[in-house]
């Protein structure tokens, strides 16, 4: 097959594989000869944006990634932080955007499968999943089917493996019409002294393949030119990856069982670029060589070529290096769980990857030069000019405040996402002590009093209006959502979704967002320990809104002290923490009520975030808070309404004298704010202590009754708000 190719066609093939002319020349130089098809395929995936981070690397290096409690930052399969008691949390977020657009159910399902593997590869038992979803306009003809398929796929996979899906976010915007975003996050827990890494070691040690068999799944579609692969196009065409959560569940149990022994030297899941990236990464990190016999790779289909075996993205597979002599013990465990197990190669000291197939050498390439020489681009950057500020006075007040509130609560972005999370088993493992619907989900660390708080956040419209501020805000909101439960935010993972990096404006968004993220991480002591970059989310020059999803993790030492958003009692005082300037630019009010997306986003004062948040956490920990909620999308009025709906009781808001215009007070999205429900007998002391600490704090109302009012006006029944808020998504999904 390859022999028939001329040199010219090899260069053409390289181009089809997505290698630039320069990259191809570099590949030839590294090889000292013309790479064959298999080798070219390996170059193309190893140097792809997905594996090499060639457009983003320069900026990712700038992110804060350390703290005393960080055990392992970016670079491994997932990030690791110390959560006390000899345990660590292992977590990461990853995108599966394109596959989910092509085949929503399987795309989303395999996205969940992939991120789970990243976590249990490190020896952690997965304990929670989250997902961050962005769809096109609800009116777009494809949206409903995509929502339905993605949600069913996430649930179908997570429910089956028995890991609770406890939170996430889901919003809609026309800019995602042609490119939806499906970001999945997994959190696991491991013993601190039993973390597994991917660095291979030990010359002569066996390299072992476990899990499902390899098929022609997901082989880089565009590269499959029929001229190269002959006339048998139907059989050779790459196929969509189908998830097999049952096998994944077995793989989790089998891997954890083997990890309880000391047979494993290194382990790596086969994710994007399957066997290629896993073998290169393991051998590369160890500075070793590796020879594999592809005949030994378990295969689902007949007649697979070396190229296909190396590039297959079949799911539910792992590659491990075992200590010599431990093969039989490991084989027995995988046999018990009815999974394939095969020794496919051995480590050596050559620094080269050699692949044999049907008695022939199909590839022989140097590992380090290929990984180290992986191109890094300093792409042209055109910074985004932030949208100009918008004065609150220039925005018309609504005729009916309560009606505006109701409209907003029933708008796609603010509407309840119950229809989604009820399709997810969010309680399996019986440690979910804060279910979806609040600020952050809280999952108890099994058998202890402490718990993890988990959230996923990003406000893409802010990132579009001002990338730096948007980046800061995404981190700040995640930090705030954790804080609002009483948790101490520890670290975050990110999934950076942007358009085509070859356009300077897109790089401008990327660089701006990263700058904002880094600022916030530093100011809040909230480092990034893992992440993922997804570029080229763009169709016909329409890019998605810049969407750096943030997955935050926090720790509650005593889960009995956890706070929730639901109002707990009548006649409590409501206290607003944080300053209100009435910022309406880029707000939900502006978009949903006045139809405009104008204005700069609210400024994020990171010092104020930290001060206010630390103060609120202190109050929660001291048991002085009955309910707590951060103020974000929709502003204060929406935040109070959410507390009222969750607690099924009313509240009377009283606007403090001398403040900003009423609509700006109610709907402004000023940051660093929280609403607290507190004992009325303690509120004076609380306000006093806030004043001493320099924290803006003001009494804004009282709980009780069945309606929500503002200065005694605009009564609206909480039950009515609740039904409007709950109805939008199920009604939308049931329309044909």
């Amino acid at each position, binding site marked *: 097959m390859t022999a028939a190719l001329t040199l010219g066609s090899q260069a053409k093939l390289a181009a089809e594989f997505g290698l630039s002319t320069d990259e191809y020349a570099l590949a030839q130089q590294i090889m000292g000869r013309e790479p064959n098809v298999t080798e070219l395929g390996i170059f193309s995936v190893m140097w792809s944006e997905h594996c090499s981070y060639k457009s983003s690397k320069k900026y990712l290096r700038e992110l804060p990634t350390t703290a005393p409690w960080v055990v392992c930052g970016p670079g491994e399969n997932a990030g690791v932080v110390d959560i006390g008691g000899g345990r660590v949390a292992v977590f990461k977020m990853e995108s599966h955007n394109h596959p989910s657009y092509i085949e929503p159910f399987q795309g989303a399902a395999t996205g969940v499968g992939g991120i789970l593997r990243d976590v249990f590869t490190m020896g952690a038992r997965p304990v929670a999943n989250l997902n961050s979803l962005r769809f096109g306009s609800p009116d777009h003809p494809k949206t409903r089917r995509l929502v339905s398929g993605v949600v069913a796929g996430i649930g179908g996979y997570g429910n089956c493996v*028995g890991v609770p899906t406890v939170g996430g976010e889901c919003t809609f915007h026309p800019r995602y019409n042609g490119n939806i975003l499906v970001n999945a996050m997994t959190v696991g827990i491991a013993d601190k002294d039993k973390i597994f890494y991917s660095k291979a070691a030990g010359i002569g040690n066996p390299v072992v393949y476990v899990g499902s068999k390899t098929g022609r799944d997901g082989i880089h579609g565009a590269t499959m030119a029929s001229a190269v692969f002959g006339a048998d196009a139907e059989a050779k065409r790459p196929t969509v990856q189908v998830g097999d959560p049952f096998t994944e569940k*077995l793989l989790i149990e089998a891997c954890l069982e083997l990890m309880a022994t000391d047979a494993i030297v290194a382990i790596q899941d086969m994710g994007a670029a399957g066997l290629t990236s896993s073998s290169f990464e393991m051998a590369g990190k160890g500075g070793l060589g590796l020879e594999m016999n592809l005949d030994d790779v378990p295969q689902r289909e007949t007649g697979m070529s070396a190229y296909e075996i190396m590039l297959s993205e079949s799911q539910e597979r792992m590659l491990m290096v075992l200590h010599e002599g431990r093969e039989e013990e490991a084989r027995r465990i995988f046999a018990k769980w009815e999974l394939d197990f095969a020794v496919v190669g051995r480590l050596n000291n050559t620094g080269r990857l050699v692949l044999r197939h049907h008695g022939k050498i199909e590839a022989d390439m140097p590992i380090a030069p290929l990984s180290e020489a992986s191109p890094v681009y300093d792409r042209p950057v055109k910074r985004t000019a932030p949208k100009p500020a918008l004065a609150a006075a220039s925005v018309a007040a609504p005729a009916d405040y309560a009606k505006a509130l109701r409209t907003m609560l029933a708008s796609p972005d603010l509407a309840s996402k119950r229809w989604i999370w009820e399709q997810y*088993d969010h309680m399996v493992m019986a440690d979910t002590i804060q279910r979806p619907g609040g600020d952050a989900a809280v999952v108890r660390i099994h058998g202890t009093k402490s718990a993890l708080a988990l959230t996923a956040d990003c406000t893409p419209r802010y990132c579009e209006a001002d990338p730096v501020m948007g980046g800061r805000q995404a981190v700040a909101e995640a930090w705030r959502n954790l804080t609002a439960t009483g948790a101490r935010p520890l670290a975050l993972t990110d999934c950076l979704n942007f358009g085509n990096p070859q356009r300077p404006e897109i790089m401008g968004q990327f660089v701006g967002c990263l700058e904002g993220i880094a600022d916030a991480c530093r100011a809040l002591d909230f480092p990034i320990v893992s992440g993922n970059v997804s570029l080229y989310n763009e169709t016909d020059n329409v890019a998605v809104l810049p969407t750096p999803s943030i997955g935050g993790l926090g720790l509650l030492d005593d889960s009995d002290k956890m706070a929730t958003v639901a109002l707990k009692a009548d006649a409590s005082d409501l206290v607003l923490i944080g300053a209100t300037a009435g910022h309406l630019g880029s707000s939900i009010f502006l978009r949903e009520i006045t139809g405009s997306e104008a204005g700069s986003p609210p400024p994020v004062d990171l010092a104020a975030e930290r001060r206010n948040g630390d103060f609120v956490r202190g109050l929660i920990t001291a048991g002085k808070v009955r309910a707590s909620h951060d103020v974000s999308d929709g502003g204060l009025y929406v935040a109070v309404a959410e507390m009222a709906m969750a607690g099924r009781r009313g509240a009377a808001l009283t606007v403090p004298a001398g403040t900003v215009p009423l609509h700006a007070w109610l709907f402004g999205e000023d940051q660093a704010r929280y609403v607290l429900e507190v004992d009325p007998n303690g509120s004076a002391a609380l306000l006093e202590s806030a004043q001493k600490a320099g924290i803006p704090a003001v009494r804004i109302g009282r709980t009780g009754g069945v309606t929500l009012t503002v200065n005694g006006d605009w009564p609206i029944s909480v039950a009515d708000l609740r039904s409007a808020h709950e109805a939008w998504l199920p009604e939308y999904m049931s329309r044909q």
Partner: protein
Amino acid sequence: MKAAVIVFPGSNCDRDVAVALERATGTAPAMVWHRNTDLPKVDLIVLPGGFSYGDYLRSGAMAAHSPIMRAVAERANAGVAVLGICNGFQILTEAGLLPGALMRNTGLHFICRDVHVKVENAQSAFTSRYAAGQVLRIPIAHADGNYRADAETVARLEGEGRVAFRYVTEGGEAAEASNPNGSLRNIAGVLNAKGNVLGLMPHPERVIEPALGGSDGAAFFTGMAEALG
């Protein structure tokens, strides 16, 4: 009470139910791998929730043919208490130890939420700590919980008091709106003729302490511990 929990490939509530059993009895149950052919001497056998064999083909179908199920059937016939929760209920019907079948929910979606169920039979060893007619709040989490049986079977179940739990409103009424999955006559759990085998879709093991959002399931386990010695 000594208990055994059967672990099938794909079980995922095995640990949850073991925790609930240990909390109620003070002793950890024996965890028995599905490929075993014999069971320890126990007073209670639990088939836990989850997705045995991925729920592929039909929920519970493949697990019903696991090697251990022969021993489970023998013990059930000998009068030992056997409890199937969710997937365990599906396995018991597929194995013929309980009548009927659990089909796809009428809404076709997987549903995870709290529902209200009424204790219809408080005489069994499983429900002795509850009062007849008591309404419990317990979560469900399933895609195939739509209970079906032919008219004759249903009449027999009703006549013999073998409907153990029914989906009801908070006020205890078996209304259509309180039926989450389309089950015939809002049936949420059934007993075998001898009363020693129970299958139910809701998950009592998920609500055994207030921190988990409810404790209505706790009496299920303490009741069994008491009744089964």
